[in-house]
């Protein structure tokens, strides 16, 4: 018998279950006949449920050994749970869309799981190499998914664009890692603070700047956001929804791991930079969103703007900022997926209905759907009593606490700007006549996605205390 090193595989149980699910779904597709593809969706949902169960019950610790490069602490677990919930809702909201456009294949689900796996690995990385592996595992499936509708030139273009720019940004990230290694002589994130003579080291600062570019690209922060509108618009709608959430969570997991959790001693260097990026991101995202007539492009700019708000939490440089960012992302996940879930099942002449004007009158005909959309839009705009408001309240409290009142003021003012485009969507839903070429018949699964997201947004807005106390306990353990 080969003597096994003392590895605690239980620490990796969530990641293993997600990776296993990806492989199993790929294999399952081979066994199914043409008409049985719907089974895949149920299998995927089952796999998400199992992975969630595993994540909630599995142990904390590090891998491969005590102090290893993968750490499973509160932050990891929080992101894992959020990512799996997002994955589940994304699968639900594709239930109408995929069969209609003949996209429901094993690869699709396998790629979703693989991408989520990458984000989960990023959340638990304590080593630059692992962080990079996670980043690539997150990104590469997304490139493929963006171009998944092979017959649609739009989708192919989106995939291509995303891939080229993404590869470029990965290179930045990798170069940043190299510079940091040159300065510190270690790949370990947790060893950075122990490196002697670090404060003014140009290598280290240069590396940090390049890391900011790489992670900022994934988070779609200004000025690394250019890919987002085109990719969001071109990708199949369920992919857009999934991407807007999972890529964002993965990127912010990385940002949290690198900046506040590892480079805390250089806070005086990166706080001004991140604050500046946050400000530019909030302003540009919200202002340009005003001009959009395409819902997916609108949501792209919305996701840019929200990256700005989440960055405010990081840039506050306080422990409260850390958990506010985590809480913000959880809220962002539900309201964004909810909004996509409402419009996902809509069809205009056999194509996806992605223009805002396509939604005219839908809310009047289907009041519950309309009310849910109004709720998501209000939450995205940060109007109480929704999760979006609570999330912003904590973010801005953290900013003020960190002495950055100007960021808070800019944040609330750009939120007012955002009201006009979010409310326009809600308004269109309730006015005008339903367009004759638009059909809205969501299936039970798609409706379930809407209902889950709506319940979460309301719950986080009215009774945030239980969720918050979990998030806060997590953050307090870390700092």
């Amino acid at each position, binding site marked *: 018998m080969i003597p096994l090193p003392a590895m605690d595989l239980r620490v990796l149980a969530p990641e293993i279950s997600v990776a296993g699910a990806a492989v199993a779904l790929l294999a399952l597709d081979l066994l199914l006949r043409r008409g049985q593809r719907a089974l895949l969706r149920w299998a995927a949902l089952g796999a998400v449920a199992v992975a969630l169960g595993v994540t909630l019950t599995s142990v904390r610790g590090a891998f491969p050994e005590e102090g290893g490069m993968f750490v499973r602490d509160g932050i990891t677990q929080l992101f894992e749970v959020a990512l799996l919930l997002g994955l589940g809702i994304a699968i639900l909201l594709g239930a109408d869309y995929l069969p209609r456009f003949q996209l429901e294949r094993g690869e699709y689900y396998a790629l979703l799981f693989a991408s989520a796996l990458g984000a989960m690995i990023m959340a638990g990385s304590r080593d630059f190499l692992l962080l990079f592996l996670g980043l690539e595992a997150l990104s590469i499936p997304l490139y493929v998914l963006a171009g998944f509708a092979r017959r649609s030139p739009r989708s192919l273009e989106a995939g291509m664009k995303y891939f080229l720019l993404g590869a470029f940004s990965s290179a930045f990230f990798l170069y940043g890692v190299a510079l940091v290694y040159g300065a510190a002589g270690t790949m370990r994130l947790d060893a950075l603070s122990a490196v002697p003579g670090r404060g003014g080291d140009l290598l280290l600062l240069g590396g940090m700047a390049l890391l900011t570019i790489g992670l900022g690209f994934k988070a779609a922060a200004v000025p690394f956001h250019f890919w987002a509108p085109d990719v969001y618009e071109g990708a199949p709608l369920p992919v857009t929804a999934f991407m807007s959430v999972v890529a964002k969570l993965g990127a912010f997991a990385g940002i949290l791991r690198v900046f506040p959790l590892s480079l805390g001693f250089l*806070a*005086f260097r990166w*706080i001004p930079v991140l604050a500046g990026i946050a400000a530019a991101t909030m302003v540009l995202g919200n202002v340009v969103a005003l001009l959009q007539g395409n819902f997916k492009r609108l949501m792209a700019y919305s996701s840019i703007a929200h990256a700005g708000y989440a960055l405010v939490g990081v840039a*506050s*440089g*306080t*422990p*409260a*900022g850390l958990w506010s960012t985590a809480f913000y992302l959880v809220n962002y996940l539900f309201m964004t997926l909810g909004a996509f879930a409402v419009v996902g099942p809509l069809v205009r002449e056999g194509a996806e209905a992605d223009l805002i004007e396509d939604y005219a009158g839908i809310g*009047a005909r289907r*009041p519950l759907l309309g009310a849910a959309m*109004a709720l998501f839009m*209000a939450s995205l705009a940060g*109007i*109480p*009593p929704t999760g979006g*408001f609570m999330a912003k*309240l*904590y973010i*801005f*409290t953290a900013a*003020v*606490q*960190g*002495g950055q*009142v100007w960021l*808070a*003021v800019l944040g*609330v*003012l750009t*939120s*007012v700007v955002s*009201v*006009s485009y979010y*409310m*326009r969507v809600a*308004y269109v839903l*309730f*006015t005008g006549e339903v367009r004759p070429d638009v059909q809205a018949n969501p299936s039970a699964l798609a409706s379930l996605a809407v209902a889950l997201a709506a319940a979460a947004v309301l719950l986080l807005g009215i009774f*945030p*205390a239980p969720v*918050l*106390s979990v998030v*806060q306990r997590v953050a307090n353990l870390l700092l």
Partner: protein
Amino acid sequence: MGKVPVLSLVVFTPLAGAVAVALLGRRPQVSRWTGFLFSLLTFALAAWLFQRFDPASAAMQFAERAPWIPSLGISYQLGVDGISVLLVALTAVIFPIALLSSWDSVTEKVRAFTSLMLLLETAILGTFLSLDLILFYVFWEGMLIPMYFLIGIWGGPRRSYAAIKFFLYTMTGSVLMLVAIVILHLYGRSLLGAPTFDLLDLQGMRLPRSLEMWLFAAFALAFAIKVPVWPLHTWLPDAHVEAPTAGSVILAALLLKVGAYGFLRFALPLFPEAARSAAGLLSVLALLGIVYGGMVAWRQHDVKRLVAYSSVSHLGLVMLGIFALTPQAVQGSLLQMVNHGISTGGLFLIVGVLYDRVHTRMIHDFGGVARLMPTFAVVVLIVGLSSMALPGTNGFVGEFLTLLGVFRANWRYAAVAVLGAILSAVYLLWMIEQVMHGPVRARSPERLVDLRRRELLVFLPLILLIFWIGIYPRPFLARTEASVQQLARHVQAHTSYVQSADLQPSRGGGEGR
């Protein structure tokens, strides 16, 4: 009683109604009745509250408190005192009337309309009763969404523009107030040692001068936009003109009061020193509003616009009374807030009655209406006289008390304000003369039939209140007295500035940087 959470019942009964309407109201008539009955139930609860309210006490009555988000010290805290009790009662009176008035005029999407109205009622009542700053803010912003849709869906031709203008205008002010609330909270945390958003805990705090000024400015901006104080009033005519009748009534009678109430409940007690310093500026703005609103109202051809601008003028007087900072003037202002709710609410209902019949609101399209609609003419006269503050009506008591209080504080202000009273008589009498008397100019006079029984029922409670407050205002004034006295004492006496010696509060453990 004792353990029954009366205030929560008052606040959330309309919400329950909104849910009930959403679930049951497939047929319009069911929606209307369900909504109306729930608003009546709320009224009954509020009436009980008003009856049981102890006029002798200045403390918060029927107070409720429960932790909401303990980690940040946010609590669910309600209470009623002399400053809010009248406004709660007014809200509970106005909503059934507004719902009744839209019985025939709102025929599309009745279920959504009724639900949104009830949601709005919950938000307004919550705003008047919250004692926690975040809870207050949640209700305060919660008003925007229902109002946005009420204007945007059931409004006039330019509804989409008016709705978003209303939304953006009022939200810009309130988000800055949110930042101020957060700053106040963090300051309070370092000073009091525990995180809290409790108004009663925070209002005893002493703040550095410049901080107090900034925070007061942020609060004042939010409230001044809502009132609206000249020159921040430009959203109001648009919103009023485009809103459906019931929306205009709510807007005028209640939403504007929320702003003035905000000054009394939050801005003055939290930042007394700053409020004293800003009193001169705000009084001048109030006077400009009184005169400007009156003059512009006089020039209007659209009856609804005329009434909208008259609101700017009347609310100016309310603001003037508040910032005279004497008990008498503040009490007068409070009563005047209720009076304006009754009389201007009534005027918008009158415009609605005319518009429902001939679908125009232009003054020159009317004339001689009194001959065609005699009962209506009496109603118009009573409501008009109440708005002009003729003795014997409610308006007189409130205006007289306010002016008297202002006069004692600064006779020059009072002199200018009297001008506003004269102006209001001018434009209202001119409007009544043009519309009600002279030759009949309506294109289809046969449609100008007199008030139906339901419409009469709408005006009856208002007329009752006009005379009740006009002749025997004691029950109303008595309830405000103790609280207003206490507020005035607090604002006048409280030196809130931190002495230079203890300017540095003990900061908790230098977090973060």
